[in-house]
């Protein structure tokens, strides 16, 4: 079973898709694909069969998303908590993942045609080495594509992701690239695994569970959350349409809340810069005199903000380099110049 399923929508599906597309569409949708095991129990098949069908459903859903002009999808494939499951099941899931990532490489042409870029988010060091290598191959080989994006969260929890971002920033401080006062909401977002994606507009969880289960906690603060009772392997095009309809009904209020949050964020940054400038002026006795009039204070503020942005930029560059080289090393390739 391949990653992108070929095929078109039926006439009635196409019609509905076009109607939906007349309204505001989510650009980025996240899925918690829950219910594979319950599905297997219900159908009296092996648990592993449930997981396989779940993967097939993902391929189908990706096609629907493409047809609906949704260019970015993030899925929760395996949580760090899932390592607690029986060894047999964990091994089965790792094997399935390895197969699917290997399969991906055979489908290069197809992925290139659709311009699919695959990213894997999570603490990959927790995975067996051969799986890490398969993942690195898939990530490196699709890195250049930019039409649609599939983010697979593997060995992931949101708390680990946030903690990792804090650790990266602390590393930047250690290296003297940034100062502790440069830490901000925006910078933390840039240090998350998901730094290259916008926050999801819509989060869908299937199988009737009403929790986030440590998935994208930071990123979904202002997303539309839709909990659906259908089991993941039984997910249909119409379920997806229903979720999008929910998003459209919520669109204006969410937009307003998001704008308000952005304003707050900018205000906080300005506040922080002011504090830092005031502190700097206090410490440097010579500048004390000219720091008092508002105009020179404003100038100081602007220079400080420009300096801060420069520090942050070079830190993020170093961070990206580090991340790229992790995949390149695993892949045994020479880093691209």
């Amino acid at each position, binding site marked *: 079973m391949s990653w992108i399923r070929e095929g078109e929508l039926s006439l009635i599906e196409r019609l509905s898709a076009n109607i939906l597309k*007349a309204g505001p569409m989510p650009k980025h949708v996240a899925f918690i694909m829950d219910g594979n095991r319950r599905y297997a129990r219900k159908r009296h098949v092996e648990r592993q069969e449930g997981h396989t069908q779940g993967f097939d459903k993902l391929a189908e859903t990706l096609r629907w998303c493409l047809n609906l002009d949704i260019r970015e999808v993030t899925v929760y494939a395996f949580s760090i908590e899932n390592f607690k499951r029986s060894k047999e099941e964990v091994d089965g899931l790792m094997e399935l993942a390895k197969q699917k990532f290997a399969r991906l490489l055979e489908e290069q042409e197809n992925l290139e045609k659709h311009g699919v870029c695959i990213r894997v988010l999570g603490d990959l060091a927790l995975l067996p080495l051969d799986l890490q290598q398969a993942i690195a191959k898939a990530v490196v080989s699709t890195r250049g594509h930019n039409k649609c994006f599939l983010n697979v969260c593997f060995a992931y929890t949101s708390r680990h992701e946030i903690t990792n971002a804090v650790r990266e920033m602390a590393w930047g401080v250690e290296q003297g690239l940034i100062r502790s006062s440069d830490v901000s909401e925006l910078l933390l977002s840039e240090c998350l695994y998901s730094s290259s994606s916008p926050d999801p507009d819509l989060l869908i969880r299937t199988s009737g569970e009403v929790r986030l289960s440590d998935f994208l906690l*930071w990123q979904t603060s202002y997303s539309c959350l839709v909990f659906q009772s259908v089991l993941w392997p039984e997910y249909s095009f119409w379920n997806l349409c229903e979720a999008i309809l929910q998003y459209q009904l*919520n669109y204006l209020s969410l937009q307003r*809340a998001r704008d308000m949050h952005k304003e707050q964020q900018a205000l906080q940054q300005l506040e922080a810069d002011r504090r830092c400038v005031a502190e700097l002026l206090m410490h440097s006795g010579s500048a004390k005199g000219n720091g008092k009039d508002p105009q020179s204070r404003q100038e100081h503020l602007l220079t400080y903000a420009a300096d801060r942005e420069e520090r942050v930029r070079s830190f993020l560059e170093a961070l990206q380099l580090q991340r790229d080289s992790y995949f390149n090393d695993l892949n045994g390739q020479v880093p691209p110049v």
Partner: protein
Amino acid sequence: MMALVYEFVWRILHALLHLQRVLISWFRIRLWNWRLWKRAVAALLVPLALGFQNHKKLGTSAGKRGLRRVRWGADGKSLEKLPLHVGLLIVEEELHYTDIANLVVWCMAVGISYVSVYDNQGIFRRNNSRLMDEILKQQQDLLGLDSTKHPVEFLNNRNEKQDHQVLSCQPVVKALSPDDGRPSIVRAAQELCKAVEQKERRSKDIDVHMLDSLLRDSVHIPDPDLVLKFGPVESTLGFLPWHIRLSEFISLPSHTDVSYEDFFSALQRYSSCEQRQGK
């Protein structure tokens, strides 16, 4: 041409959905009014039947409060699982302090130890004292408790260093704003980075547990197990992103005129949920 047709159909579809929403909320209010009417009639008839015996009436109302307290307490015990910490998340334009106060008092009466109240404009946080006054008033109204005998602890400032111990029987109520969400994680990150800057810590040592303990207050409050969301917006709107990892979300249409029955049925739904924690 086709695009216009699609847009037309889309508009009709959404108009219908909005109409459905309005109708549902209208019926809800109608139903509520009808219930109020029944109550009003009953209230009118009761004093007539008692023959204007004022002292007797006073006695029954005090007795009723006592009964209610006992009933609510028993309701809480009848549930298989009761949340330790409930988040009341209000995603509506209009805020009603009395209704929120009712909800908080019901939470206390069924035996929930921690209650957080949140709105994404930080209105409750700014009007903290008004909310707390209202809660005390409703507590006396509904339960007839002497507030000095059953003190409620109000936490309003995260920087406040409080030395007191939280007793298990003493409910804690807290008003939260978006500032307690992502910005509080940023403050914790700054603190850790500062420690690294001053060579007190190494970046490698930072782990989930360390960040988690920084994000808890001086008073140890557990993560909310249940978030009751009131209003039509399907989002958390920035409510404690770090802490809602395992919280169950239950939506209610509005907090305006919310009834004890609505509240209790949400608790019953929570009680029947099973958590697998990754397994």
